[in-house]
C-alpha cells in the first residue's frame, strides 16, 4: 500500500520541522518527504489541507485492563480508543490481575495485542513478584518476552533493601526501572493533597513530602546502583525541583506527568468529584504551575494519559471509596494542544513531550517523521471542537475529570506501519 499525504502541515518535533508539505509512504515506512520518490504511484491520497501531520503519539502509561479486569475494559475497546486518540505506541503498567510478573503472561498479552494492525504495545514487567515488593521477578526472562522496563505500577515498594537490590539487579543488565514516587506510610489512607481542599472537605490527606521523601530515596539509590530510573507521575513543585537537580547532577533520570496533573489541581475536586480521585493526588495550583513549567523546559520529559478506565459504579461512591483513575487515551492530544495554546509553547516543542521524548525513554525509534522510519502517524484537524461526553469517548472508561469540557483538535487519521487504522470522515 502506497499512500501520499498531501499538503498537510508536517510537524516533526525530533527534527523541529514545522512546514506544509507532502509525505510518501510505502511498505509500511515513510519513504520521502516533500518530493515523491521516482515513479511513486500512490494507491491512496489523503488530502491533508488544513490538517496537521505528526508522528503517532507515544503514551507511556495506558492501562488496557487485561488480563484480569475485562469487566472494566477490554483490549479491543482500549486499543480502539488509542487509535481514535492518535496513539500509535503505548506502554502498559504491570498492575493487571495477575500482574505481569512471568513471561507467559507477557507473551499472551503481546500475542493478543499484536493480532492485527494496531497500536504497538510495550508492556512493563513487574519489578517484584505479584508486585508485593519482596522477591525480584525474572527480569531477564521478562525482557526476552517483550518487557521494555520494570515497574511496581502504583504498588509501594516499602522495603528499601529490596528496592536497592532490584535497582542493582536491573542495572546489571541495563534494564530501566520505572517508579512512582510515593512513600507508602505517609500516603497511608490518604485520598487528596494535604492542603486547603482536603481540610475543607475533611478528606484524609497525603502530604507533599510523601513524594519528595520517596524521590530522595530513589535518587540516592540511583547514585548507589547506577540504575536507569524513570519517575512516573510527578505531582509536586518540590518534586520537580528534585528532578531538575538530579538531571543537572547527571543522574540517569527521566520523568513524566499525567494530563490530569498538567491541567488540574486540588480545587477541581469541587464537591467531592470522584473523577478527581487519582494517584498521586491532584495538588495545589502552585504545584500545577511548577509541573507546567517543568514540562515546558524539559525537566519533565513526557506527558502521559495515565489511562485507567474505571467502571461507572466504582466512581459512584463517596470520594474516599471511589476507585482510582481517569480515562485519558483520547484526551492526550487535545490536552497537549490546550497546554501549548494557553502557555504559548511552540507546537513542535509541546508535541515532543508526547512523541519523540517518550520514544527515547522507551528506547525505540518511534515518534519521528523521517525517511526510513515506520509510518506511524497521526493527522488531526487543529480547529475542530468537540465536547468530552460518555458518547464521544470510545474507551469503555467514561471516567474523566474533563467530562463536559470542550476540546479543540480532533484526530482524523491514525496510521500504524503504513496502515490506516482509524479514519474519521468528519474530522
Amino acid at each position, binding site marked *: 500500500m502506497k499512500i501520499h499525504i498531501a499538503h498537510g502541515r508536517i510537524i516533526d518535533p525530533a527534527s523541529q520541522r514545522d512546514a506544509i508539505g507532502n509525505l510518501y509512504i510505502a511498505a509500511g515506512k515513510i519513504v520521502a518527504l516533500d518530493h515523491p520518490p521516482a515513479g511513486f504511484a500512490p494507491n491512496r491520497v489523503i488530502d491533508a489541507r488544513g490538517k496537521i501531520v505528526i508522528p503517532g503519539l507515544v503514551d507511556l502509561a495506558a492501562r488496557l485492563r487485561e488480563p484480569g479486569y475485562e469487566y472494566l475494559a477490554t483490549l479491543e475497546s482500549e486499543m480502539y480508543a488509542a487509535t481514535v486518540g492518535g496513539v500509535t505506541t503505548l506502554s502498559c503498567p504491570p498492575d493487571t490481575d495477575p500482574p505481569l510478573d512471568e513471561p507467559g503472561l507477557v507473551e499472551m498479552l503481546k500475542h493478543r495485542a499484536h493480532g492485527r494492525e494496531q497500536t504497538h504495545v510495550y508492556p512493563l514487567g513487574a519489578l517484584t513478584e505479584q508486585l508485593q515488593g519482596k522477591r525480584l521477578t525474572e527480569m531477564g526472562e521478562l525482557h526476552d518476552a517483550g518487557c521494555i522496563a520494570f515497574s511496581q505500577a502504583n504498588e509501594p515498594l516499602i522495603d528499601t533493601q529490596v528496592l536497592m537490590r532490584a535497582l542493582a539487579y536491573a542495572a546489571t543488565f541495563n534494564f530501566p526501572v520505572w517508579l512512582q514516587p510515593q512513600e507508602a506510610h505517609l500516603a497511608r489512607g490518604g485520598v487528596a493533597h*494535604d492542603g486547603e481542599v482536603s*481540610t*475543607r472537605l*475533611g*478528606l484524609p490527606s497525603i502530604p507533599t513530602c510523601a513524594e519528595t521523601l520517596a524521590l530522595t530515596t530513589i535518587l540516592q539509590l540511583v547514585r548507589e546502583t547506577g540504575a536507569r530510573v524513570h519517575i512516573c507521575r510527578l505531582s509536586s513543585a518540590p518534586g520537580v525541583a528534585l528532578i531538575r537537580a538530579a538531571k543537572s547532577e547527571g543522574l540517569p533520570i527521566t520523568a513524566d506527568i499525567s494530563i490530569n496533573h498538567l491541567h488540574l489541581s486540588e480545587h477541581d475536586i469541587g464537591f467531592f468529584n470522584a473523577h478527581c480521585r487519582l494517584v498521586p493526588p491532584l495538588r495545589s495550583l502552585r504545584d500545577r504551575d511548577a509541573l507546567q513549567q517543568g514540562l515546558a523546559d524539559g525537566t519533565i520529559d513526557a506527558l502521559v494519559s495515565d489511562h485507567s478506565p474505571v467502571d461507572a459504579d466504582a466512581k459512584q461512591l463517596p470520594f474516599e471509596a471511589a476507585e482510582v483513575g481517569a480515562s485519558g487515551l483520547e484526551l492526550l492530544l487535545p490536552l497537549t494542544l490546550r497546554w501549548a495554546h494557553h502557555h504559548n509553547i511552540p507546537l513542535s516543542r509541546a508535541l515532543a513531550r508526547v512523541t519523540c521524548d517518550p520514544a527515547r525513554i522507551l528506547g525505540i525509534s518511534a515518534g519521528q517523521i523521517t525517511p526510513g522510519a515506520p509510518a506511524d502517524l497521526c493527522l488531526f484537524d487543529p480547529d475542530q471542537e468537540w465536547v468530552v461526553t460518555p458518547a464521544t469517548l470510545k474507551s469503555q472508561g467514561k471516567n474523566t475529570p474533563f467530562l463536559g469540557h470542550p476540546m479543540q483538535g480532533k484526530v482524523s487519521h491514525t496510521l500504524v506501519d503504513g496502515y490506516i487504522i482509524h479514519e474519521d470522515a468528519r474530522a
Partner: protein
Amino acid sequence: MHHPQLTPEGHLKHLLTIEGLPSHILFQILDHAVEFEAVAHQEIKKTHHLKGKSVFNLFFEPSTRTRTTFEIAAKRLSADVINLNVGASSQSKGETLLDTVDNLAAMQADMFVVRHAESGAAHLIASHVGPDIHVINAGDGRHAHPTQALLDMYTIRHFKQRFENLKVAIVGDVLHSRVARSQIHALTTLKVPEVRVIGPKTLMPSQVERLGVRVYHDMIQGLKGVDVVIMLRLQNERMNGALLPSRDEYFKYYGLTPMKLTHAKPDAIVMHPGPMNRGVEIHSDVADGMQSVILKQVTFGIAVRMAVMSLLVNPNPGMRPV
C-alpha cells in the same frame, strides 16, 4: 459552581454543609427554631409541618443521640419516621450506597437524614435522588455536621444574643472533626470576628487558617478573653498512638479544667457536641459547672432540626400549630 444544596431561587433544597450558605439562611433557620422551641413547652408537642411526609433516618454509622433528636424533631412535625441502621444490613450484603438509596426512594421517601463514615456521602446521595427528595447531612466522615453547628449557633445566640462581638475558641481534635469544620463555617458566616482553634499540631488539618481561624497550640493563650469555649470529642482510637501519647497527657495540655477556664471571660459559656469523655477533654467540674450549657445544646438541637426540616419542605414558612 452551582451550589448543590440551593435551588436556582436560592432556597435551601438540601442541608449538606454550612459552607457557602448565605448568612440570611442561617438566621432564617435560627429564627424559625425560636418558634419551634416554644412547641416543646406546649402541652401537645406537635405541629403539622411534615404531616403525611416520610422521613428516613439513614444511618450508615452508629449514632444514638443525633438519630434520636432527628426522630423526635420529625415526629413533632407529624412526619412518619423510619429508622434504618444500614450499617448492619444492606451494606454488609454488598449493596451499594446508591442502590440502597434508590430502594428507599422507591418507597416514596420525602426526606433522607443521612449519616455516613465517609466525607461526601451526603453530597453523593443529594446529587443522585429525584427532585422531590430532600437530604439532610447528619454527619459525613470528617467533612460536615451542619445541624450540630446550627444548634451550636442557636445556643451561642441564646446566651450571647449577638455574634459580631464574640471571641470563640474550638478546642481539641480539629483534624478529624466534622463538627469543628461546620462550626468554623457557621461562625465566620455569622461574622464572629475571632474564631480560634486550639490543639496539638498532630490534630490540626493543614492550612486550617485558610478557613478564617487563628491557630493556638497553647490552650491558656488560646482561651484568653474568649466568650465561648467549644470542646471537641476525642475519639478513643486517637488517644494512644502516633497522634497522641496518652489520654493523661492530652488532658494535661488540652483538657478543660476549672483553672484553665479562668483565662476565658468570666461569663464565658462552655459547649460540647457530645458524647463527652470526662477526664479526657473536659473535667467533670466544668462539664457540670455553672458555665456549662451542654445539656441546653441537646434541647435546642430538637428545635433547630425541626426548623431545618420544615424549611426544606416549605421555604416560606408560617407556623401552623395543632
